[in-house]
């Protein structure tokens, strides 16, 4: 029992540190790639090719004045950034990133918590981050914040339905909600769910982008119309909490896509963890690539697309999967 606790604590510590480092690197990668997509250089000054830029940004944000405006609801105002950041952190707990290894006679799973309702847990926690955004918008006592928060809640609730449904096909084939079992079901290339569930994969990507509030679905923060959306009134570390949460969620969504569709850690020659990271990075690159390419939806287009196109398609996907499975 004691060894179990120690092993888990070590895993939590390592994954927590690696996750935060990845968030920091991701902000650098995004700026760098966006720069090169726009035929610029991106950050170049701090460290080699601007690699230390996240540290400089972090120091800057820490030393900024932490403003709490007079008319805000203080309790909710302080709570909201935490509510967006913490769900992003705890989702990582169920994502398997490698094969189990034997160390000193102990079997160590490369996942913090291997429990059989993994996906359900992710959905439950991910929908919590909507609260953070809505409460931030409401408590700021600012019209633009409120509009951003409302848009965000409407968007995330509409797309969460499709997000959940787009994954049903995977569970039906794998016959389990446990992420480790799902990865084990994709041990060969032709078994990967991206091949068995191509439509599901596309739908998941679209819904995930919408869940992340990223371009082309970044209506909640649409700076041209809403200044900055729900986090106008935030400054200093509270402001960066939203961004940590956002980038953390980006990593989570990519990790989930890797696990569910690209065979998780499976791959030849290289160690499993390396394969997992390669696939994860490919997804992160894809999201940045999308951001560099597509313009933003209009609000009515967003809602029409969500309810009239995505939802029927996800249900169709479930139907097709079911029919094929029975045949």
């Amino acid at each position: 029992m004691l060894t179990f606790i120690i092993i888990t604590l070590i895993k939590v510590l390592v994954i927590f540190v690696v996750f935060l480092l990845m968030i920091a690197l991701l902000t650098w990668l995004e700026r760098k790639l966006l720069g090169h997509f726009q035929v610029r250089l991106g950050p170049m000054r701090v460290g080699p090719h601007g690699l230390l830029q996240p540290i400089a940004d972090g120091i800057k944000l820490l030393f900024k004045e932490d403003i709490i405006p007079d008319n805000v609801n203080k309790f909710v105002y302080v709570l909201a950034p935490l509510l967006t950041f913490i769900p992003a952190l705890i989702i990582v707990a169920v994502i398997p990133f490698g094969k189990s290894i034997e160390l000193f006679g102990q079997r160590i799973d490369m996942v913090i918590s291997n429990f059989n309702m993994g996906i359900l847990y992710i959905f439950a926690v991910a929908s919590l981050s909507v609260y953070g955004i809505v409460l931030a918008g409401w408590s700021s006592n600012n019209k633009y914040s409120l509009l951003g928060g409302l848009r965000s809640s409407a968007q995330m609730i509409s797309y969460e339905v499709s997000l959940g449904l787009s994954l049903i096909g995977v569970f039906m084939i794998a016959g389990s909600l446990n992420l480790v079992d799902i990865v084990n079901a994709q041990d060969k290339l032709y078994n990967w769910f991206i091949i068995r569930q191509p439509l599901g994969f596309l739908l998941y990507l679209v819904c995930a982008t919408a869940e992340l509030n990223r371009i082309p679905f970044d209506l909640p923060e649409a700076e041209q119309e809403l200044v900055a959306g729900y986090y106008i009134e935030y400054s200093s570390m509270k402001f960066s909490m939203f961004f940590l949460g956002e980038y953390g969620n980006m990593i989570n969504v990519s990790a989930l896509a890797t696990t569910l569709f690209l065979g998780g850690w499976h791959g030849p020659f290289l160690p499993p963890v390396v394969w997992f990271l390669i696939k994860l990075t490919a997804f992160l690159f894809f999201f940045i690539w999308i951001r560099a390419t597509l313009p933003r939806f209009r609000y009515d287009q967003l809602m029409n697309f969500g309810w009239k196109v995505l939802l029927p398609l996800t249900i169709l996907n479930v139907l097709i999967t079911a029919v094929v499975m029975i045949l």
Partner: protein
Amino acid sequence: MFEVFKTIFLAIPKGLSVTFKYLFTKAITVRYPEQKLTLSPRYRGLHYLKRNEDGSEKCVCCGLCAAACPSGCIYMEPAEDEFGQRYAKVYEINELRCIFCGYCQEACPKEAIFLGKEYEFSNDQREKMIYKKEDLLVSIFGQRMKRPDARTGPSGGVRPDEHSG
């Protein structure tokens, strides 16, 4: 519905391929303090006043440059030296008001004032942006004299017409 599929399967991949192509083109950024753009030969930067070969100033303080100046940034006071030669006792250009149109250079009958190629002469004090005659005059060899009071601005020994940019 059909339009949506056309967008998803034709338009978006096309757009993605365009941006992907640009990812591998060379960035056009000029990293300014280290790298600088090459200036056009006709570039109009900070003014300078030329001298004759014997070291006397070319400017005779006729006032044509001040008359030609659309922003009225040139101020001068004439005087005569011991040989009865007219010269500018005071010659000031307010570089904050100057629009660098080059009309003074065109108007000058003595070919005394020119616009060089220096452009890095910003300052945090307005008074220091009023350039006196000593700041504008170059040596016989066409090099800037020292400008001791300016924190930034043109330094001595630089040829204002050959500023590498």
